[in-house]
C-alpha cells in the first residue's frame, strides 16, 4: 500500500492526542511543557505532510515559523517556572492553589 498523506495524518493525530494526554494527566509542570511540545510537533508533521502532498511550500514556511515561536514560548514558560520556583519551591500543578479555581 502506497504511503499517502492519510498515513502521516494518522501519526500526527495520535501524537497530538498523546501530548494532550500528558497535559491532562501529568502534574509536573516541566513534563506538561514537554507534552505541549509534542502537540506542536504533531501539528508540524501535519503541515509538512500537507505541504508535500499539496505541492506547495507554504506549509513548510509555516513550520519554520512554528519552530521559532515554540522556542520563544519554551523560553518564556521556563522563565515563569523559575520565577515561581524562587517563591514557592515547587514545580507542580497541584501546588498552584493560591487562588481558588
Amino acid at each position: 500500500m502506497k504511503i499517502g498523506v492519510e498515513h502521516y495524518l494518522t501519526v500526527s493525530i495520535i501524537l497530538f492526542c498523546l501530548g494532550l494526554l500528558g497535559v491532562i494527566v501529568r502534574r509536573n509542570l516541566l513534563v506538561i511543557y514537554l507534552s505541549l511540545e509534542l502537540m506542536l510537533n504533531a501539528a508540524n508533521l501535519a503541515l509538512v505532510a500537507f505541504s508535500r502532498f499539496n505541492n506547495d511550500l507554504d506549509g513548510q514556511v509555516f513550520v519554520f515559523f512554528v519552530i521559532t515561536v515554540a522556542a520563544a514560548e519554551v523560553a518564556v514558560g521556563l522563565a515563569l517556572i523559575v520565577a515561581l520556583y524562587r517563591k514557592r519551591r515547587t514545580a507542580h500543578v497541584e501546588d498552584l492553589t493560591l487562588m481558588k479555581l
Partner: protein
Amino acid sequence: MAQLPDILFYVFAFLTLACGFLVVLNPFSTNPVTSAMFLVLTIGSLAGLFVLLHAFFLAAVQILVYAGAVMVLFLFVIMLLDLPAEERRKVKKAGLVLGLISVGAILTIMLQSLLQSSFSSEAAPTLEGSTIPLGRLLFTQYLLPFEIISVLLLVAMVGVILLSKKDLK
C-alpha cells in the same frame, strides 16, 4: 513489494509514537529528565519523517533548533531546579483513568473523521523542500511574518531576562 521509503515510514512512525508515549507515560520512571530524553528521540524520529517528506531543510532545523537548543534549555532548567525526590509524586490513578478515557474518545473522533473524509491525494508529490526556494519565500511573500518573528523574539528576550533576573537590593 514494499519499498524502502515505505518501510522507513513505518519504522520512524513507530519510533515517534513509542517515544512520544514514553515522554507522557513512562511506566518505569516519572523523572522529567527521562521524559526530556525521550522527547529528543521523538524529535529525531520526526526529523526522519520530514526527510521522507523531502523537507530536508526543516529536518535539519528540527534537529538543530529543537533537539539542540530547546531541549538543552529544558534539561538545563530541570537540572537547575533539581526537584527534590519527594516532589516526584505518583500520577493519580483516578485522574489517569479519566484522562485516558477522554483523550481516547477524542482520538477516536479524530481518526473517524479522517477515515470518513473524502480528502485524499491523487497527484504524485513532486515538491522538494530545499533551502533556496524556502529562503526565497521567506524574504518575499513571508517577509512581514519574518519581521514580526523578530519582534516576538525581542519580547521573549526582554521578558525572560526580566523574570529570571534577581532584583538588585
